[in-house]
């Protein structure tokens, strides 16, 4: 069947560390960078005789995420033990949820290249993380730090609705954004707070009885960045295609099943870790030490009611409600707190009515140009910026009303951030108010035309570009205060009359 159209079919399993203070089944603090084995207790050490106790906040965050994904919360969820032996898993089983998870179904709409595509969600469930196995300096040993053992993990399993490497990456980024928006986790991939495991195969076509046929599935582990996700998926798609073209009859899911592969970032390729034959027999067992979770409907409704506006919904609303271009809306809603701040700036404008279309666009420019620059320079989040949304609105008000020009506005903003003074105070103190007095400006413009005959002539003849130089000269003569719009009008009147 060579020449058949092979459709990449990708599902993602994503693990997220939850933003809880304590571990999933014991009261040890969850802390990155703590000294080795200093955030452990008999329970997470898996000592003889210990028992797990569920973290309420972890359950709540899981329900929140499941609901935000449009899933349902079944009446009954149960914990299971998943058995395998490894030195970073002290009990030699992981407590997880096998067939009765906390959340079922749902979807995520993912923006990519100006469009959105939808990825179905199969399930959302909780489990505990393992510790860290590291190689000792002395090559004969490995060492184990169990601080991370027991950290709550949320696993989100998607339907195989992803069909390209770019989509895989976009999905991961959108899921992360949602989790951060919800306060479910910080999800920093480089810190290991989020792990993406794509499951990749190619749909070969349909068999004689109409059922879909696939190449074997490969699951990729050890991806530490979104870039790696994209590269690995692209690599696998190409590899599957090659393998299939070499052996169209044999390279199928029926024959070879699912394998696990690791990603080598420096070589940008995958390698086989575990074949179908070596797959784990996890010997799932309903966890007898934990009782089932029967989420109270009232509690679920409360969590649902408390959900913030989701990023994709907000992005679309910014486009519709504020008339912002897609790109701007995307930038402003990438971070929930930035979006909140932006909307505050919009609503705190006093001199223009809220429905004035100039206001949101002006506010957007202030955010994207001035505020973002400060955040980058100072390497801070919007929560740490030393200016209030109201003050930015005040500056924007002044510019829109013509009291000061845009460049002056930027300066005022900067000074406000540095000194903490109010914009009004700064404008007064430094006498920055723009001059719009027609009389005075007429006199200035006459001087400028006299002193700049060349550009004046160019402009009179229709070369629009020349006006910039003339306005610039007028500003220079007025110490930057000439209202450029008024100056332009006067120049047009005098030179093109």
């Amino acid at each position, binding site marked *: 069947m060579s020449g058949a159209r092979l459709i990449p079919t990708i599902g993602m399993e994503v693990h997220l560390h939850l933003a809880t203070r304590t571990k999933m089944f014991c009261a040890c603090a969850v802390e990155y960078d703590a000294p080795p084995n200093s955030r452990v207790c008999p329970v997470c050490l898996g000592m003889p*005789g210990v028992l797990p106790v569920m973290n309420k906040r972890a359950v709540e965050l899981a329900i929140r995420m499941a609901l935000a994904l449009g899933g349902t919360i079944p009446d009954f969820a149960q914990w299971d033990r998943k*058995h395998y*032996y490894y030195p970073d898993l002290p*009990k030699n089983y992981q407590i997880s949820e096998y067939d009765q998870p906390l959340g079922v179904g749902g979807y995520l709409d993912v923006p990519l290249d100006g469009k959105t595509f939808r990825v179905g969600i199969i399930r959302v469930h909780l489990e505990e993380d393992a510790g860290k196995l590291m190689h000792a300096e002395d090559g004969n040993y490995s060492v*184990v730090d*169990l601080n991370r053992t027991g950290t709550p993990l949320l696993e989100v399993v998607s339907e195989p609705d992803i069909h390209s490497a770019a989509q895989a990456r976009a999905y991961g980024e959108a899921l992360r954004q949602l989790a951060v928006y919800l306060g479910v986790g910080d999800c920093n991939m480089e810190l290991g707070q989020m792990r993406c495991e794509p499951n990749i195969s190619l749909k070969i076509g349909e068999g004689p009885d109409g059922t879909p046929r696939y190449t074997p599935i490969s699951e990729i582990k050890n991806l530490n960045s979104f870039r790696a996700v994209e590269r690995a998926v692209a690599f696998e798609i190409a590899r599957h295609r090659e393998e299939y073209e070499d052996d169209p009859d044999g390279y199928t899911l029926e024959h070879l099943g699912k394998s696990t592969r690791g990603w080598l970032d420096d070589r940008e390729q995958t390698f086989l870790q575990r074949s179908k034959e070596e797959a784990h027999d996890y*010997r799932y067992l309903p966890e007898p030490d934990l009782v089932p979770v029967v989420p109270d409907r009232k509690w679920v409704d409360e969590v649902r009611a408390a959900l913030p506006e989701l990023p994709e919904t907000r992005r679309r609303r910014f486009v519709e409600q504020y008339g912002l271009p897609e790109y701007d809306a995307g930038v402003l809603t990438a971070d929930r707190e930035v979006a909140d701040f932006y909307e505050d700036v919009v609503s705190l404008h006093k001199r223009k009515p809220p429905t004035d279309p100039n206001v949101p666009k002006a506010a957007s420019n202030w955010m994207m140009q001035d505020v973002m620059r400060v955040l980058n320079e100072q390497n801070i989040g919007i929560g740490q910026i030393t200016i209030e949304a109201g003050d930015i609105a005040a500056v924007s008000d002044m510019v829109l009303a013509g009291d000061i020009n845009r460049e002056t506005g930027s300066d005022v903003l900067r000074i406000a951030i540095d000194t903490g003074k109010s914009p009004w105070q700064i404008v007064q103190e430094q006498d920055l108010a723009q001059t719009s007095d027609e009389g005075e400006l007429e006199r200035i413009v006459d001087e400028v035309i006299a002193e700049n005959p060349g550009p004046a002539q160019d402009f009179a003849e229709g070369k629009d570009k020349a006006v910039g130089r003339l306005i610039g000269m007028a500003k220079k003569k007025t110490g930057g205060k000439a209202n450029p719009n008024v100056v332009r009008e006067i120049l047009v009147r005098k030179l093109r009359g």
Partner: protein
Amino acid sequence: MDVTDLTACRMRDALRARDLSAADAAEACIEAIDRLNPKVKAFLSTDAPRARRRAAEIDKRLDAGEDVGLLAGVPVAVKDNMCTDDGQPTTCASRILQNWRAPYNAHVVERLLAEGAVIVGKTNLDEFAMGSSTENSGFEATRNPWDLDRVPGGSSGGSAAAVAARMTPIALGSDTGGSIRQPAALCGVVGMKPTYGRVSRYGLVAFASSLDQIGPFGRTVEDAALLLQATAGHDERDSTSVSETDEPVPDYLATLDEPVAPLRIGLPREFFGEGLDPEVERAVRDALAVYEGLGAELVDVDLPHSTDYAIATYYIVATSEASSNLARYDGVHYGHRSSDHTDMIDMYMRTREEGFGDEVKRRIMLGTYALSAGYYDAYYKKALQVRRLIRRDFDEAFETVDCIMGPTSPTAAFRMGEKTADPLTMYLSDVYTASANLAAIAGISVPCGFTEAGLPVGLQILSGVFTEERLLRIARMYERETDWASRAPPVCEGAS
């Protein structure tokens, strides 16, 4: 007065009245242990200096008029599968934990300490509580104080023997398929398995998590009630321990002497069938006659799934859970590690080969097999379905009767080595007891006589979930009419 002849309750009264000091009570037990343990081998470890220090401290507080607690100054022994953070090892009678010292106390140990008890030692058991004779201990086999060539029963054989031989008035054991009740019967003492969830399992080294319960041994029902009172109650560290609001802990001692009337006693045909020793049956029927004499009505009930099917169910459920619970013993984080290995996997394999005894290995493998891919439905799931049928049998029976009675064990104490050739023969010792664990209900064994050869026989009484208060009263009714507890085993007489 020989202090070791006193029950825990009488000791407690004397201690409170200051007719007896905690130091003397502890010393009496220490002396008895020194004298008798070499023969009975009930204790794996003791710490006499520590016990003495503790007793002295309790005396000081009692002298100052303080209310030190329910067990103030009373010596207690603890089965060595419960964690004690007191310098003594917690071995579970296994080489794999031979030198392990727990860095925390089990909940029940915390309770004992809070109530002023003096822990005199850790007692022997079948390794990881797997067995019915204590012959599976990784270190030594405990002897029955009534006949040193015979087994004390198991798995809590050490605690039962220690109480029977008066080395300690009371002791804690654990019961997963009968491991308190059966040794109690074989050693002629009272042993009780509370309802699942009545006593916290935090710090009890798990064998079968959905079946294990900690319970008391004493020579009298009153002593068992006292120890239960001290240890029962909710523990937030054990998610399976019932809450105070759902099931508050009653005052077991306050109502103990109130008979239950009317009393309807269920007798399952299945508990009096094939395999029951005639002498055991006679002693049990004599006890039933005593109840009739007190006005109780004997009623036939059916427990069609409670004997053979219960054993089969038990040996799937318990071994499956055990294979999981014992997966952690791998030489990485604590316990024994094999010194001779080639790589990580080999280290695991050799560590467990060296550290575990045969019975533990068998049960782990059985459980692993039952849970493995392709077998789960046929074994584990099927067993859980039968478990529900077993539970239904009891639910239906308890609609018409207040309790169920029968023999605790099909035989009196058997000889050492008699049942070790074929594991199944040993498993059938649990035939009357395992169903109670599967159904989560409460059960007690009280002494009801002796065989011709002078071996104790136990009467088992079972009642519904969280009915311990009534169960103890029912047991007390019979005890009041008899005097089995006053007979001491021959080993207690004579010089060391």
